[in-house]
């Protein structure tokens, strides 16, 4: 029998050099998992970018998806938000239903 559980879905769009710091924040807040997706192009701050312009990947963006309980994610949001003070990137959160709540 499937039980539905309300969780939060955090979506963070951030530069790939800063990914490790963002991951460390999530780990520190005790989330049970996340998934990173590569972005290939975008627009923000009045310039377009696309993957390949910079071979060091320093301008590549990534999208981090993290599903979890509000108790765990709210503090993480707070801290990631602070991290974005000095960095480019976008952070949003929405409500989702998950199946298999025991695991996260």
């Amino acid at each position, binding site marked *: 029998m499937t039980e539905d559980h309300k969780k939060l879905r955090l979506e963070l769009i951030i530069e790939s*050099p*800063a990914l490790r*710091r963002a991951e460390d924040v999530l780990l520190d807040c005790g989330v049970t998992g996340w998934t990173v997706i590569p972005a290939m192009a975008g627009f923000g701050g009045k310039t377009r970018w696309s993957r*390949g312009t*910079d071979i060091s990947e*320093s301008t590549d963006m990534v999208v981090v998806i993290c599903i979890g309980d509000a108790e765990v994610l709210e503090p993480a949001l707070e801290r990631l938000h602070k991290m974005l003070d*000095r960095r480019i990137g976008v952070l949003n959160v929405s409500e989702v239903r998950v199946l298999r709540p025991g695991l996260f």
Partner: protein
Amino acid sequence: MNALSTLLSPVVLFFALGLFAAILRSPMSVPQSFAKGLAIYLMMAIGLKGGVEMSKTALDGQVFAVFGAATLLSFGLPFVAYAALRITSGLSKVDAAATAGHYGSISIVTFVAAIEALRMAGVPSSGYLVAVAAVMETPAIISALWLAMRGNKANSDEDSHHDRGELAREVLLNASIVVLLGALVIGAIAGEDGFERLSPFFKAPFQGVLCLFMLDMGLNAGRGLRRGWRKLGVAPIAFGLYMPLIGASIGALCGVLIGIGPGDLALLMVLSASASYIAVPAAMRLALPESDPSVYLTLSLGVTFPFNIAIGIPLYIAVASLISG
């Protein structure tokens, strides 16, 4: 070999092809992961070649002097660049510092193109300059951070001690340093004999691979230029053109004082004149995230890199042959 023949070499022409295609907004691209693979190949190849040559000659006092001078150049050039930018351009303190860091560090592809140009011109150079290139990559980053942080303690509070250690590790173990120095050591161990079996992959096809890679560099430079030039005024673009000349001159001075031969002198000038677009941008995103990548990438990749490839390299070789020949 004269300047025209450098300008018309396939390596430069493929770069120009990519540059024009990007400026005309061609949809073509070289896949990023393929280009990155080629970049690793190029760094392995020059690392191995340098190592093999180092295995044949003893390191003497002159060599150590060059390493010392190179470290000082990498530390010092950002100060010159910063002063020039703050005086002539309207760039903010942090953008000027970040950009200055790029000009103290080096562009490994410019270095590779210069080695190729020297080889075509028949001017010999020493293998240990590959190690010099690796050594020059990072000191400039420290200068740039110092310039940017000077007088505002506010945002350095945030960076924990932990972050600093991590930054140091990420910068000192970045791909180009690992591959260059690693291949150099492996080349020195393998020696002439061991390298022979590798040369059908790392030596014979080298110039061809460089052509393909330069096509991609041209596309990147052109795209960077097209997207970024509007943000830049005349002064920063002029900086991207005269700063390599200043760097090359200071590098030449050091080289002449030490008394190195024309090939090595030309390479030291090239290293001083070139601007990083691999190691330093990544470090700036980590340590100075407020700095604007479209400023420093446009300048180093879109202005200085093409300038060095087309005009700088033949010029530095000619000057080095004159002074030291």
